[in-house]
Each structure stands twice: as structure tokens, then as C-alpha cells.
């Protein structure tokens, strides 16, 4: 599904922030990405969701070399990836419903065809009462769940979550982890970037540990 071969990344003429990364993300897999602040977790995630291109090495996503992709082909690949951002990135002028429905609108689907699907998912993530609320009136946990719902509504093959429990209490963190595990069981590969040791201890999964730009994989 995802293959990194000797990938290096530097910003401009600065030092390499990621060095010689070689790993794979297999279909239906579940893994944590961890490491201290500044270790390069966000940069690695940006490479994974095609926001950056590597300065060296090879990255293939769903069998495509990302360096050679056209903008439209990149957009098509991004549709197979769900992303949960640490800062949620919900659009404040759109209701929770419209935010979650966004990936389906982008696919060109008619509203009548996805309405029930979106509302059902919002109920599933516990936002049934907040369907028409705007993000500014949602709590941190509600925003987080809305962001997760948006990431999974189009049934992505790969889910990337950046510190998804960073803004929530431990109880909600456990609920969100269960949500990710449910998604994984339904066939989505999940990569959760976190430095929450307690969260990782809740589930025995493969760990990708970044330290000073280098990756260590613990199966």
C-alpha cells in the first residue's frame, strides 16, 4: 500500500529532517507513529498525504511513484486517504454535516445520495445532536470526532491521524481509539501519530518510532 525506500527530506537548504526512511504500510494494518517533538512526525505525515515530495529516495502510494504524479492524479490518490489533523481543519462556515460531507461533494455525488450516510456516521461518532452546529460552538472532543467522521466518510483505504487524542480527556481518548480499531477491522489501514504513551499502551500494535529523523520499527 505504502512503500518508502531510503527516503530523505530537507526543507530548502537546511539539514535533513528525515533520513533514510525505509518501511511499508500493509493493507488492513494498524500502527502508531511516535517520537519526541521535532523528530519529524509531521513531516513524515505530510509525505504520506502528498503535501510534500521527498528530496531523495522513493515513495510509492498504492503502486504509484508520488514524484511523477500529475496534480489530478494526486487528487485521485488523496481520495483513498483519510486525514485527521491535530488542529482539525474544519471549515468554520460549514455545519458539522457539511464538513463531514465535503469529501463526498468533492467526488461529485448528489446530496440526496449521501445525506442518510453522513447523518448515520455523525450518530455513530456521537454527534447526532450537533449535526447542524458550526465548528466554533463545538467542544475540542466534538471537533475531533467531526474531523474523524470527515476522514472516514468516503471509506478510505488508509487513515492518517495526527495526535488525534491531543485535545481530549483520557476517557474520550479511549473511545476514539476504539473508533480507529473499528475502522481497522472494517479494512482501513490506520496510522496514528502520537506521543501519548498511555494511548499506545492500550493496544498492542506495530510502532514506528522517529528519532532525530531516523525511523525505528518495532513489530
Amino acid at each position, binding site marked *: 500500500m505504502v512503500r518508502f525506500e531510503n527516503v530523505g527530506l530537507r526543507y530548502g537548504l537546511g539539514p535533513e529532517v528525515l533520513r533514510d526512511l525505509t518501511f511499508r504500510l500493509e493493507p488492513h494494518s494498524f500502527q502508531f507513529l511516535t517520537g519526541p517533538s521535532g523528530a519529524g512526525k509531521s513531516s513524515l505525515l505530510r509525505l504520506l*498525504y502528498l*503535501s510534500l515530495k521527498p528530496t531523495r529516495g522513493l515513495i510509492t502510494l498504492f503502486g504509484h511513484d508520488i514524484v511523477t504524479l500529475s*496534480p*489530478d492524479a*494526486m*487528487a*485521485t*490518490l*488523496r*481520495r483513498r486517504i483519510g*486525514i485527521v489533523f491535530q488542529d482539525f*481543519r474544519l*471549515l468554520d*462556515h*460549514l*455545519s458539522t*454535516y*457539511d464538513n463531514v*460531507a*465535503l*469529501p463526498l*461533494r*468533492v*467526488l*461529485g455525488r448528489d*446530496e*440526496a445520495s449521501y*445525506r*442518510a*450516510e453522513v*447523518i*448515520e456516521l455523525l*450518530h*455513530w461518532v456521537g454527534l*447526532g445532536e450537533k*449535526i*447542524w452546529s458550526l465548528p466554533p460552538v463545538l467542544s475540542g472532543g466534538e471537533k475531533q470526532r467531526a474531523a474523524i467522521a*470527515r476522514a472516514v466518510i*468516503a471509506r478510505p483505504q488508509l487513515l492518517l491521524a495526527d495526535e488525534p487524542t491531543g485535545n481530549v480527556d483520557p476517557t474520550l481518548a479511549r473511545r476514539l481509539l476504539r473508533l480507529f480499531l473499528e475502522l481497522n477491522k472494517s479494512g482501513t489501514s490506520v496510522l496514528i501519530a502520537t506521543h501519548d504513551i498511555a494511548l499506545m499502551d492500550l493496544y498492542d500494535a506495530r510502532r514506528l518510532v522517529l528519532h532525530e529523523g531516523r525511523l525505528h520499527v518495532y513489530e
Partner: protein
Amino acid sequence: MTVEDQAMEQAAPAEARGPAPIVPSDSIAGTALLAVIAIMTFLAALTLGAVVLVRASAAEWQSQIAREVTIQVRPAEGRDTEAEVRKAAGLALAAPGVTDVRPYTRAESARLLEPWLGTGLALEELPVPRLIVVKTGADAPDLAALRQQLAREVPGATLDDHRAWVGHMRAMARSAVAAGLGVLALVLAAAMLSVTFATRGAMSTNRPIVEVLHFVGAKHAFIAGEFQRHFLLLGLKGGAIGGGVAILLFFLAGALGRWLRGSAGESQATALFGSLALGPEGYAAIIGLIILVGAVTAGTSRLTVHRTLRAME
């Protein structure tokens, strides 16, 4: 009640609301751009109207001049000018395609010269040429043959078919039309630049939206379409306001012309402003201009979004 049932129950409000616009209309600096587009369309519509009027007037003048030729009989020592005028008029009238021949009398010739030479002129003392106005029908006569015949049989007569004037008029009309189209092109170019800046501004304001659209897999065409929709509406609104005011102005000017018709002020008004009565083709051209402004605005914003997105990649 199952989750699906709850979902269907909640579906009604969604249908009533419809999906909200992804790019909020209030995030686009609309009022200023609307005013700019309205003013530019107004100026362009005035120019276009003027071009249509000049073309129509020039065509009318040309057809009037083309249906008239003048024979000039120059007096000379030892020749009977009156007899030569009669003979030239006779030859002209006999030519096929000539519908009317009217020699100017001596008194009429004196009146023609009055603005330059004053009244009380003794024309007998001056070698003033005599004029014969020859009207032609739809089938133009063989002017070359008439010219040769006059040269042969009436030594002091020459024929002027006003070709030089027609040529001047054509050139003038062409220049006026070219200048008008040039102004139109400049106005459209200025509108495109304004829209380009406004689109860049809107994209900068809405950058977080553009980024989220990117991450959920939106193609450039989809993102451009979201911005284009707003700018098309802005262009059509601004165009309709500017073009509408211009149409109203031309309509009022035409009505004023009709109201003054037959009055003493008509000739002065026509001399000052020309005829401002725009025909149906003029109004159609302005409506076409409004649509063009809308299309140019939408097209420019789309192009700008594509360029900006390419630069963002």
C-alpha cells in the same frame, strides 16, 4: 428507533437547507469589484453604443452620397455657360440610371457662396462655376461613359462622383470603429486585471478552505469551479448594472431626440450630439457585452485559480 431511522428523520432539514457554498460569498471582496465591473461595463457599453451609432450614420451618409453626383460647369471666355449647363443636364438626364437632374440657378449658386463672400454679390463679374446635381437610382449609371461624353461635348464640364468623400467617410468610420473596439478591449483587459487581483485576494483569504479541499481529494477544476461560481455571478451583476444604466441612457437620449423632432432645438441637438437613438442591434450588442463581461470575469477567475493552485503545488 434505529440509527438509520434517526438519520432519515434528520434528512428533511438537510434537504430544506441544501449544501452550503464551500467558498462563502462574503469572503470575496464583492462590493468593490462589483462597482469596478459596473463602471467598466458602463464605459464599454457607451463606447459600443457610440461605435454602433457611428457605423450606422456613416453607412447612411455613404449611401446618400453614393446616390448623388455633381456636374460642374466652369465658365470661360467666349462660351455660353447657360447653354453648356442645359446641354450637360440633358446629357446627364439621358444617361441610363439617372433619376433626376437639377441645375443650380445663378441665385442658388450665389446663396452657396454667401457664407464666404457675403451678400449682394454680383456673380456676373466672377467666374463662378455652375453646379448640376444628378440623382441616381439603385442601378448606378455608367459614370465613366458620362464623364467621357461630357468631356467630349461640353468642354467646361467635369463630373464629381464624390468618391474621395466616400473614401474619407469610410476611413473615418473605420477609424472610429477601430478606436471604439480598442477602448472596449482596454476596458475588458482592465476588468480582467481587476478580477485577477480580486481572485488572488479571495484565494489568499480562503487558503485554509483550498488546503482542506486539496486534502479531501478535490481536483483543480472542482476548486476553480467553487470560485468561478461567485465571480460569474459578480460579473453578471456588475455587467447588468453598468450595461443597464447605459441602455437607460441611450433610451432616454433616443426619447429626447423623438421629443425634439420637428422642434427648433432638434437641429442644434443633432448638430451637438448627433443622433443618439440606438437601434435594436445596439441594445442587443450591449446585452451581449453584459454576457461577455460575465463570461470574462468567470473565465479570468478560473484561470487565476488554476495558476495559483499550480504555484501552490
